[in-house]
């Protein structure tokens, strides 16, 4: 399976990855020119947080081998595909109990800001060859690696 590897030292916090994520998942269209940055209904699935010395730190879903979010999910909305290693969220099945938010050991997950009814979760950009965040990082702070995870 592929995973987004992170080289924190190369991240300068430009947020291109977050904008790329928002653009990719924007219902109005994928172009950066139709991206409305004030629309709270369109949130980035990844985020850059500052560590305790103020250094930008990329926090991206790991699509874990034994995902705590899937284990915690009592509705069947979270599942891991053993073939691709992707951890996928199905909002239509979700009961908004937020046990996955509480269970993600790295605090990646959150509920959507606008309605607080669904989870904001990386989908590895679906059919795309390379996730758009990775494509848009100017510093190669995030890049794809192949890992074996069972």
């Amino acid at each position, binding site marked *: 399976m592929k995973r987004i590897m992170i080289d924190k030292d190369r991240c300068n916090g430009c947020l291109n990855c977050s904008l790329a994520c928002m653009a990719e998942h924007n219902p109005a269209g994928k172009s950066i020119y139709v991206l409305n940055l004030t629309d709270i209904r369109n949130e980035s699935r990844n985020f850059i947080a500052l560590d305790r010395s103020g250094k930008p730190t990329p926090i991206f879903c790991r699509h874990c081998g034994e995902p705590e979010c899937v284990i915690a999910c009592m509705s*069947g909305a979270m599942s891991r595909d053993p073939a691709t290693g992707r951890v996928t969220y199905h909002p239509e099945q979700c009961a908004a109990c937020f046990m996955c938010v509480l269970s993600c050991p790295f605090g990646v997950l*959150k509920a959507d800001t606008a309605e607080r009814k669904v989870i904001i979760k990386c989908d590895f950009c679906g059919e795309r060859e390379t996730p758009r965040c990775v494509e848009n990082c100017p510093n190669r702070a995030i890049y794809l690696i192949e890992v074996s995870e069972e």
Partner: protein
Amino acid sequence: MKYVIIGASAAGINAAQTIRKLDSQNEILLISKDDRVYSRCMLHHVIAGKRSLDGISFVSPDFFTQNALQWIKGTGVRDIRFAERRITLEDDQSVAYDRLLIASGASASLPPIKGLAGAPNVFTLRDISDVQRIGAAAQAGKTALVIGAGLVGMDAAAGLLEKGLHVVIVEQADRLLPLQLDRTAASNYQTLFEQAGAEVYTGVTITEALPSGNGGPVQSVRLNDGTVIPCDLVIAATGVRPNTGFIKDAVLTMNDGITVDEQMQTSLPDVYAAGDVTGRSAIWPLAVKQGIVAGSNMAGTSKKLTDGFTAKNSINLLGLETVSLGLVHAPDPSYEQATLNHHGVYKKIIYKDGVVHGVILQKEISRCGFWTQVIKEKLPIEPWPADIFDLNYAAFYQIAPNGRYQYARAL
């Protein structure tokens, strides 16, 4: 080689899936009283009319065929003869096993209140038949009395309110959700429930249900302060007991439930137990983990349960979400507390000597999952930050060569 699993909920289903991943050859048979797979945590959504029975399944419709699982459904177990490795079902079928998992769950029990037992309008909320009976008894405008304001009682209360009933909640502790919430967080729910039309009585007990002792329906209950509350139906949500009634053979060691080691093995070889029947799982994620560990060991791949943490609850009632981890109150003055309370957002962190022991977050729970790890592992936070509520996983960031996140001990 034949695997048999008793129970088809969180632990049983996950054990079956785990065994099948590791063993593609041998027969796996599930036996369950339930005739469908469903999430008990969503039963109140069925009461509310927000979900169908199919809508509360937590597995895909083709789960059993996909994993090549046999399933005897709608039948309980009458007896297990461990020496012969043989199970007798309630319909007289006899089933042999080589490796057995008992994941029979728990049943709701009625509190010992005079007049409740045997009344036709007194229900628990544990399985689909309960929901169907409650549905038949509950028509809009009626009054439902909920005994016990724990997670199940509050779910039931919310579901019945959404269905249009008048709901009265009675709790003997001084607040709603006493095991998960402190007074502030609980009172925010109380306000919400009262605004939605519920009546809440805390710090009281029910002395009897009336009329008592004739086997007829309960028409009212009397509280210890003398108050009489009329009601049309009663939901008792005061606790569960492991389903071990079918185990008459005394060779199996029991405590509150079936005793297991960290591999989920019981006192007998090739007999495992997982989930609520162990009396130790309490929350869905732990039942799932126990099922995975049991299934793995049954299929010959050694695995230990590394996580027994149960003080982890997430609540979402009437559109207000709260998470609760570890301690709810500081046990003594040597503990410190940080609180934040504005615009309906309430946060509290209980800590001592740089170690966090309890977290409550209400209405703002974004990206809070790292706290589970911090509390479970008692990770010291050094130095203590200027604003503890700003802390996030970046403070602990460490990455392995395969891209897995880890926790750096030193910050």
